[in-house]
Every structure is written in structure tokens, then in C-alpha cells.
């Protein structure tokens, strides 16, 4: 395999575009210029998996270090071509999602063989779900808006709570970038978590939380405790200058 810069053609294409720097590529699968490689890949005349892009990029970087400023347009054109090739190859390297098979709603035989063990449960769930659909329950929200109900928070003032939240935020780390498909956390789940962790003994909020948490997580924790206080499922008190929480 060999890649070399054989000179700058400094040519304009038929569309008036600057041609990329003429990197000459010699590979078992391909032999020619970077422009030619770009074209054959775009026209799908070559399998990009057979073309190692690393030596081409390396040669390009060497060229950039030695090239004069006059060739910037050509260098930029080569960079675009390389970026295109890298992106195409990256897509090729990604694992292909196997789509879930289309299944007919009532076709019991279409369950995947690997999950046959669970077939009897799936059948039971189907029956129970149908039975459950025949039952109707009282719906919520009868009576006044619960947010207007007064509730007592003992000797804790809004300022105490604000200070407690400020302390929690001081220790928080910046938010991390979450994957797009991550299920969004609900406040209800966070409230359930607080109820699981909290006991009858009064503790500051920071004792409930994990050692490391992000700012968003801090907000979730604090909102969950506030909401539980409003519902009367958590009580608070001020001990010294710290607000502590416990189950009633």
C-alpha cells in the first residue's frame, strides 16, 4: 500500500470547483487519485471496507504540514473528500440493527424462539389485560385542586429550603450528555426512590443522595422531596442550620 502526494494539479472542475490535492493512492483494491477514489465510492463502484483510510489521512496531514498557503483551497477540498469517505466508512462499520419482526397481534406462534420460555406468560398477560379492560375505576381529581391545599412544614421556612437546595447544588457536577433514546426520568419515579431510601430518622438531603450527582439530578431529588412534603409523606425540620427530612 502506498500513498503519496504527487503534486498539485490546481485545476478547476467542470463546475468551477477546486479539485482536491492530488494524493496518489496505491492499494490492492484501488489505484488512483483521491478525487478518483471519492468518485468511485460515491458511485458505489468500490467497497469502502477494502480501503484503509488511515494511511490516506496520514499522508494528507503530512501534506498539510508542508504545503504552502496558496494551496488552501485544494487542501480544503481534499479535507471534504476525506471527511466524506470517513463518514461513509463509519456508517458501514456501525452495527446494523436487526429490526423486530412484524408480528400479527393474535398470532401466538410468532413469538421469537429465543423467548419461548416466556410464551405462557405473554398469553396470560394478554388474557389479564383483556379482563382488566372490562373494569372501570373512579378517576382522580375529584374535589379541589390539591396544589391549593394547605400543608404544614413545621419550623421549616421557604428560605431554609432554598438554602438546603443551594447546598445540594454546590456539590453537583455539570450535566452529562445523555443518549437521545434514554427514557426520561419521571418525578414520580424519583419520589418512589426517596420513599424507599428515607427512614423515620431525620437526615439531610445530601445524605440521601449518591456521592456524585449532576445538577439535573439535584433538581429531581429536591423536587421529589418537596412534592412528598406537600403530600404529607415526608416531614422536615430545621436542626442547626440544616434542613432534615424523614418519613412521618
Amino acid at each position, binding site marked *: 500500500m502506498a500513498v503519496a502526494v504527487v503534486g498539485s494539479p490546481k485545476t478547476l472542475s467542470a463546475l468551477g470547483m477546486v479539485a482536491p490535492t492530488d494524493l496518489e493512492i496505491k492499494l490492492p483494491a484501488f489505484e488512483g487519485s483521491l478525487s478518483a477514489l471519492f468518485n468511485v465510492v460515491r458511485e458505489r463502484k468500490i467497497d469502502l471496507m477494502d480501503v484503509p483510510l488511515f494511511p490516506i489521512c496520514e499522508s494528507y496531514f503530512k501534506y498539510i504540514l508542508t504545503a504552502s498557503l496558496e494551496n488552501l483551497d485544494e487542501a480544503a477540498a481534499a479535507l471534504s473528500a476525506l471527511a466524506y469517505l470517513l463518514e461513509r466508512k463509519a456508517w458501514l462499520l456501525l452495527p446494523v*440493527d*436487526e*429490526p*423486530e*419482526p412484524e*408480528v400479527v*397481534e393474535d*398470532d*401466538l*406462534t*410468532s*413469538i*421469537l424462539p*429465543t*423467548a*419461548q*420460555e*416466556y*410464551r*405462557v*406468560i*405473554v398469553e*396470560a*398477560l*394478554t388474557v*389479564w*389485560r383483556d*379482563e*382488566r*379492560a*372490562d*373494569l*372501570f*375505576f*373512579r*378517576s*382522580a*381529581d*375529584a374535589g379541589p385542586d390539591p396544589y391549593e391545599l394547605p400543608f404544614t412544614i413545621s419550623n421549616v421556612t421557604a428560605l431554609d429550603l432554598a438554602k438546603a437546595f443551594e447546598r445540594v447544588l454546590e456539590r453537583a457536577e455539570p450535566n452529562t450528555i445523555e443518549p437521545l*433514546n*434514554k*427514557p426520561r*426520568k*419521571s418525578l*414520580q*419515579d424519583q419520589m*418512589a426512590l426517596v420513599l424507599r431510601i428515607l427512614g423515620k430518622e431525620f437526615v439531610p438531603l445530601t445524605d440521601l443522595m449518591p456521592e456524585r450527582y449532576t445538577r439535573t439530578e439535584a433538581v429531581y431529588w429536591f423536587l421529589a422531596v418537596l412534592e412528598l412534603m406537600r403530600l404529607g409523606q415526608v416531614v422536615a425540620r430545621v436542626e442547626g442550620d440544616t434542613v432534615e427530612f424523614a418519613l412521618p
Partner: protein
Amino acid sequence: MTIVDQVHALLFVADSPTKLDQLAVALNVTEGQIEQAIEVLESHFAQAGPVQLVRLAGGIQLSTKPEYAEILGAFLKPQRQRMSRSLLEVLAIVAYRQPITLGEIEAIRGVNSDYSVRILAERHFLHELGRKPVPGRPVLYGTTQQFLHQFKLNSLDQLPAPVPEGYELPALPGPEG
């Protein structure tokens, strides 16, 4: 006013399954007394009327009897969400194997399941239970009270046992029965 009437009143206003201990605390009586009151209510409802007591998601709730489903459905016009086989299968796996990661679900099913898990979480059938202490710290999923409620289950113990590997399933009846 008897305990039976008081329990009836509390269950009437409750919009979610109520646990025996919650009723006992509210009425300042023992759980045994609540249990007795509930038995009386159950037999009372069984004799007549459109209402019954159901044990769901670890609690007790008032519901209409199934025979009224048609007229209530016509009146309320409930929007029933479609539940595909894939979703049910993922739900069944999580119900048995919880806490379980997405990767483990996919290993059992042999196909990508992140869409199913996401939809089930959005419908509040699954929720995060924490993170598995392995590289990557993947999310552990478990079923919710909503799952029990929507599938008419009082607890996970009511689920049938999975069919052991290698067990030959009996042939299913055809569409004619």
C-alpha cells in the same frame, strides 16, 4: 357508623389501590378489623349492584363489575393503547428477570429491544431501578405498580411460571378453537 361503612367511604374516594395498613391507620383500627370489614363489603357487593372490590397492585380498590363493561365503554369511550406481542414479550421478561438490563433483555430475545423498553417506560409499565455495577453501568429495569394495575395483578407472584427450556409446548388450538 360501622367500620364497614367507613371502609366503604374511604375506598369510594380513593383513586388508586389502597393498602390494608393505610385503611387501618386512617380509621385507627387493626388490619384484622379492616380485613373483616372488607370481607363483609365483598359479600355485600357480590349480592347486588354494579360495584365490586378488586385486589390490585397490592391494594384494594372499588371497580365496576365486568358485566357493565359494554355500557361503560360506550359512555366513557376509553382509548385503549395497542400492545404488540413484542411489548408483551419484553414486559414478561422484565417481570420475571427484574432487575434486568436492556442488554440482558436483548440477549434473551435475540433482537434489538430498546424501542420496546422505551415505549414500556413511557407507558409507566417499566421504570429504572438503578444501575448495574458493571462496566458501562447499564440501567436496571423493573416493573411498576401501574403494570400490576393494568394487568389485573395483585402481585408478581400471580404470574405463571416460565416454561423450562427444552419443554415441549402443547399444540395451540386453531382459530376455530
